[in-house]
């Protein structure tokens, strides 16, 4: 609702500014920038196809009506609607690159100007002459291109501040890091140098822009302290401590910080390490650049009881709702996939449904893939399941059971008193580990499957020979997880 209001206000402001000020300026070349067109393109890039085309239609129609008797009603509506839709379709580029959206916005403005001219010549040849178009169009396009980055930046900024950490709208992160966003859930923008915000959706949103957003993020998410700030440390599964699950009161006190080394140096452990952890540590590698990468845990539906919480991002839908499962790379360079975490199946409500037994599932038809999880505890591996894996022929998913490696983290959600039903008798656990380490060879072909990786080389980083310090959860083609 706030977005709609903000968009309406922005459109009205741009329209009035265009008609009363910009058209009055007599810039060299005769043309004037079209602020409304730029706004429509930016809204499309920030919001997606539907907001883009709706904004375009309404803004165009308003322009048609406001400058009455200038042109036919619907001319600008038609062009702006198309531009908004096209920019919305290319919204994924906002997550991929910092420069590409600017190029797209400029190109959209140029195409929009050309379309307006062509439509004018076709529909109203008495008023729009070819000579006039030839004289004015180049200057107008150049002014549009010059103005488009600023409009785009403003729109993205406002969009990000409006949506907060939950809506996952990308905006340019500082320090040359490209903006990252995921449509629908949230962005992962762990800058590797500084503390990375992990948590429900603030993962991907980058450092929060406003103080309010920072506070909100602090309430919602876990914070990796400096001590554990290795590039690529992460948190998989489980719910953030701030999240009140039904039936369980929120823990008093501040949000837990991730402390370096709950036992092992480099471990990323939030809050108290509970006793009831899985018997064996699980070493999970989230490799990058693989074709079958996938997200860990769930997080798309905040309303789901239990588990659908922390720091993760939505495999849950695929897992719990019976759609296509998403593969998660377990181990490096193996074609194994699985979903870890989750907790879609009614955990946290106190009663466990029988269906929520954690289990490994082999995918029908694709024996090399394994789905893991769906459990209340957020992906705690069942011993039986492990055994089942081992028994299976072929290569097993590399779930390393070794302990004590640096950089491992907690897998699952030991926080907030989640009951690990049926595991009370297990011996005291070592800290499970979670490693997400950027691996080389990001040049593997991108398939249709989403990818969970680190280190797609941005073109800027490529020049320097470094890696983009941006988490990518995206497929190469779409830029988003769909």
């Amino acid at each position, binding site marked *: 609702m706030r977005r709609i209001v903000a968009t309406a206000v922005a459109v009205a402001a741009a329209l009035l500014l265009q008609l*009363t000020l910009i058209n009055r300026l*007599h810039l060299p070349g005769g043309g004037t920038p079209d602020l409304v067109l730029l706004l429509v393109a930016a809204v499309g890039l920030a919001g997606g196809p539907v907001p883009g085309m709706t904004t375009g239609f309404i803004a165009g129609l308003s322009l048609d009506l*406001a400058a009455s008797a200038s042109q036919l009603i619907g001319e600008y509506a038609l062009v702006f609607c198309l531009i908004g839709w096209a920019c919305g379709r290319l919204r994924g580029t906002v997550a991929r690159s910092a420069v590409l959206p600017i190029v797209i916005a400029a190109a959209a403005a140029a195409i929009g100007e050309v379309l307006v001219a062509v439509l004018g010549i076709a529909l109203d040849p008495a008023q729009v002459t070819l000579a006039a178009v030839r004289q004015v169009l180049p200057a107008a396009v150049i002014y549009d291109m010059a103005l488009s980055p600023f409009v785009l930046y403003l729109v993205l900024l406002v969009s990000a501040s409006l949506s907060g950490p939950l809506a996952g709208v990308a905006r340019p992160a500082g320090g040359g890091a490209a903006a990252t966003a995921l449509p629908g859930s949230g962005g992962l923008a762990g800058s590797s140098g500084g503390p990375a915000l992990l948590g429900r959706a603030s993962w991907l949103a980058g450092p929060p822009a406003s103080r309010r957003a920072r506070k909100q993020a602090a309430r919602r998410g876990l914070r990796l302290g400096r001590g554990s700030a290795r590039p690529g440390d992460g948190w998989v599964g489980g719910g953030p401590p701030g999240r009140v699950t039904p039936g369980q009161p929120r823990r008093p006190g501040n949000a837990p910080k991730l402390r370096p080394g709950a036992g092992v140096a480099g471990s990323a452990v939030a809050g108290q390490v509970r006793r009831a952890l899985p018997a064996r540590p699980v070493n999970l590698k989230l490799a990058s650049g693989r074709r079958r990468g996938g997200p860990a845990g769930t997080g798309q539906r905040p309303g789901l009881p239990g588990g659908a919480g922390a720091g993760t991002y939505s495999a849950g839908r695929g897992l719990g709702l019976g759609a296509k499962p998403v593969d998660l790379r377990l181990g490096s360079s193996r074609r194994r996939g699985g979903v870890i975490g989750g907790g879609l199946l009614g955990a946290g409500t106190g009663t466990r449904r029988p269906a929520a037994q954690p289990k490994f599932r082999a995918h029908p038809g694709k024996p090399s893939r394994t789905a893991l999880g769906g459990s209340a505890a957020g992906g705690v591996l069942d011993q039986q399941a492990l055994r089942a894996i081992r028994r299976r022929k072929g290569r097993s998913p590399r779930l390393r059971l070794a302990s004590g490696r640096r950089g491992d983290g907690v897998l699952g959600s030991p926080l907030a008193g989640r009951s690990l039903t049926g595991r009370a008798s297990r011996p005291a656990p070592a800290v499970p580990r979670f490693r997400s380490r950027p691996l080389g060879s990001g040049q593997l072909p991108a398939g249709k499957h989403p990818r969970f990786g680190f280190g797609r080389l941005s073109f800027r980083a490529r020049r320097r020979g470094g890696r983009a310090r941006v988490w990518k959860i995206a497929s190469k083609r779409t830029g988003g997880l769909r």
Partner: protein
Amino acid sequence: MRDTRRTRLFLGVLLLAALALVALDYQDGSSSVFRAIRHVSGSVFGGAERTVSAVTSPVARFFGGSSGSASSSQVTALQQQVIRLRAELSQEQLSKADYAQLQRLLQLAGQGGYRIVAATVIAIGQGYAQTITLDAGTDDGVQPQETVLTGQGLVGEVTAVTSQTCTVTLATDASSVVGVELAPSGQLGWVTGPGKTASGTGQLSLKVLNASAVLKPGEQLVTSASVNDRPFVPGVPVGVISKVQNSGGALTGQALVQPYVDFTSLSVVGIVVAPPVHNPRFSVLPPSPRARPTPTVTVTVTPGATPGASAPATPAPGSSGGG
């Protein structure tokens, strides 16, 4: 990102709606529904534009654009006066014979003259059309197809009116055609606008009906009379011929005309409101004689004074009021 089915459907609906609007407006732009829509939207946007224009016009003026309502009230009043004088002057400039003819034909009177509504430019049109929006509408008596002028000369023609605003198609618009008359020779012709140009203000192109007419640079053009003064009242200066284009075998004489009005810096303009419809005969009446006060001087002669001193100061009663 692939479109979902819903997105595609939505896009299709919106595009169809836009196309339908274009088609309907193209087919019948004067239908009552569209007129109502334009009227309402014009009122809404006009009010907003009027407000915003007060803020933005100083900015525009700073950047070399036209100044709007920000000029002081005195300047505005003076500009209005100049416009009014120009309108009156344009009448006077017509030849006596033409004037008498027009007076009879158009039932215009000398004394009433044109009624001028002064208005301020609040917005400039978008796109390739050369239009401006003024802050006077039907509430001020403005109707479509009325002449708009400034102190320099012709600006354009009112093409759309709402209650608070009106849209003026400038004489430089590519679709605008103005009937003109060459000032000394009386040749009839018309000028069309160049449309939007890179320099902002282009030259109008003149075509004269008489192919054998001799056009000379420096000749002045005024608007010729139209029926019921719509869209253009007669005698408004349009421009001066800057270059004669003689193409052999052309049916019409052609020339380029430099307009008097600087179309890039319009701020206060006048709309010539047509004579009132309810009493057209009033204006053809000759000027009514006015009763003038007669000064009366009473001289009292005192007996003791010399008669020679008081005699020159005593005019005959009634003789001074004759003039």
